[in-house]
């Protein structure tokens, strides 16, 4: 299938971008940095074609559905949103140096996706819904924003530590990165993008569940975990308003929030059971 080939190429391009971002940080050459960003963009372009192709091929098979419904497809889409969100933020906040820490994700996610079956299966009745796309897309763009915040927060902890140890060391590796207060601000802004999206994702999910099963909230593990994630980020947002909770504590909350996000996305399917079944093998 053409889509598999394209996904394979996209994975390879993401790998290449990852190597370039790391080299950029190591050699600090602007040229390398530009090429790194371009390759990431190239990966996005190829993957966009792959997703479009998979969509098209599903119609050719007479199944006709958005490519967002099993673990393979959701991981591929996650890698795609992640790369897009990262590129947008890189442009907006000029944080290419962060790339070395964040750019490996699309490659790693795609590599993990490749371990899962990728045949195009028809949909069971519950998944045949117009709410599917809005629910999945808003959740995943939200997750991708949280992932970027996670990367930035980890970097914040290192950077803040290095600033504390040697406040004025010029030319050290860490100086190449944005200042800790800059990282703190970016960590917040990415969550400010992710939080409304996650809220939309939860509400559209509840609406869909109500149409499909007649309950908008049934406390099934997936729903509950999305609420847990939402509560943690709500706590983060309020914590930041109070003085003294910026910086380190906020960064830790962002890291905890992303750990919960990952559990919500993968852990619930692999470890717990519930209505959202795409983690199981069948």
């Amino acid at each position, binding site marked *: 299938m053409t889509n598999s080939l394209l996904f394979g190429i996209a994975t390879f391009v993401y790998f290449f971008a990852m190597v370039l971002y790391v080299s950029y940080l190591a050699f600090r050459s602007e040229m390398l940095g530009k090429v790194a960003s371009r390759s990431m963009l190239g990966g996005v372009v190829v993957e966009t074609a792959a997703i479009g192709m998979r969509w098209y091929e599903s119609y050719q098979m007479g199944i006709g559905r958005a490519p967002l419904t099993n673990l393979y497809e959701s991981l591929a889409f996650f890698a795609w949103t992640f790369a897009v969100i990262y590129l947008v933020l890189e442009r907006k906040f000029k944080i290419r140096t962060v790339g070395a820490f964040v750019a490996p994700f699309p490659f790693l996610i795609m590599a993990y996706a490749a371990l899962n079956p990728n045949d195009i*299966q*028809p949909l*069971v*009745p*519950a998944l*045949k*819904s117009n709410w599917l796309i809005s629910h999945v897309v808003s959740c995943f763009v939200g997750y991708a924003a949280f992932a970027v915040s996670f990367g930035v927060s980890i970097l914040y902890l290192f950077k803040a530590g290095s600033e504390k140890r040697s406040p004025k060391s010029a030319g050290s590796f860490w100086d190449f990165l944005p200042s800790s207060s800059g990282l703190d*601000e970016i960590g917040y802004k990415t969550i*400010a*993008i992710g*939080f*409304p999206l996650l*809220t*939309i994702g939860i*509400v559209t999910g*509840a*609406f*869909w569940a*109500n*149409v*499909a*099963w*007649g*309950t*908008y*909230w049934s*406390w099934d*593990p997936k729903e*509950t*975990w999305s*609420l*847990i994630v939402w*509560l*943690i980020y*709500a*706590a983060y947002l*309020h*914590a930041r*308003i*109070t003085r003294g*909770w910026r910086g380190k504590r906020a960064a830790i909350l962002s890291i905890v929030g992303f750990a*919960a996000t990952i559990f919500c996305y993968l852990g*619930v399917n692999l470890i*717990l059971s519930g209505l959202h079944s795409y983690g199981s093998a069948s």
Partner: protein
Amino acid sequence: MSADEPVKTAKTEGTDWIATIWNFLTSLKLVVILLLILSALSIAGTVIEQNKPLQEYYRYYQPGTVALFSKLGLFDMYHSWWFVACLSLLALNITACTMDRYRGIMAGMRKRNLILDEKLSKSLQNLTTIRYALPLDAVEKKMVELAGKEFPGKPVVTAAEEGGSHYFFEKGKYSRLAFFMTHLSILIIFLGALIGSFFGYKGYVNIFEGETVSQVETRAGKIQNLNFQVKCNTFNAEFYASGMPMDYRSDLSILQNGKEVVRKTIRVNDPLTFEGVTFYQSSYGGQPDQVAIEAVSRDGSVKGTVTAPFGRVVDIPGMAEEVEAADYQEHFHLPDGSEGGRAVGVNIYPAKGGAPAGVWLLVNDPEYDKRRGGDTYFRVRDLKLKKYTGLQVNRDPGEILVWLGSILLIAGIMIAFFMSHKKLWISLRTDNKGRSELTIGGTANKNRDAFAREMEQMIQSLKEVS
């Protein structure tokens, strides 16, 4: 915070303990801790399976643990008193915070400081003065045009005592209401959920094709009468070649006084709502309608055949025994544990009277009954199933509030994050050397660094005016 910003409502006066409770309830620390506690507690319910019959828990836990967990409400923890107490405290917290901030937010929306006076000037970080060789009215025209790009709408103009004018622009005043939208929406959702659980019901009903019902059984085990009747005209299930389900659909009619008022084919994801009651496609099944049973002798010759209506004892022509198709299983378990498919439970009444013998006949394995021994065995020649559709039936008068609250919540969060109340002050006058002098400064209540960039740009373009 600038001089223009309203100060947080002063500490409540009154008796000390009231003030203490109020400050506790309105503190952001409480919010953060409460939100984190709620998320931590919620985890428990995803690890311990909820609302299973008690005997199932004994399979996983020690009896002592089951007793303890049961007492703590951990098997239905989202309705336990302590979880509900946390949610109530959150609702109280939100209510108190909203009341606490009400005056400040309203004050922030009022037009104050129409004039860039000395006190205000001191508090503005971006205060800039520009001098022009142009006449005052030419500067005014350009200035209003430039500022108008960022701040549509007419400025408030105040004539200055010493000549010239003060201009006050503002934008996004109502974005301050986002605080009420985000926080009250949560109370609205809670209210909707409460109304649903007190005044609504969730029920279940099976309707055979061609039959009509006017009652459903609720989850609480009560019989709920409907004000109308529901008829299932037909039910169909379709499958992909792989055996995966493709589509379930029921053709339903709503009848009132015997007349059809609504007809709709419902599917998963496409329910039918009538007078506030919604019918969801939920499951399906079948029950034998008629079973054609054959009595066969050991040598293979058919001794007699009868078509038995389900649940009725009938004679077999040419034989002394009577039979009754009394039971049915869609997935029969063979003694060795494997699946035997559809099976009909048949009672065979001996010719000389006495207790009947019960046997299971497999539809897909007609010779199954042969292994019972004896000179006659029975087999199913034909099975006519009566299909039924399984419908979930809901009435939830609070649902509309839940959706209203959700929309308010999303809108409120978007406004809170992406909009701000921006104010711009500009003063124009002629200085003592006869030049036109423009002083500009502005504030925003949020996203201050983005606003600072906007201001910088505006000041730059104002400087370029000539």
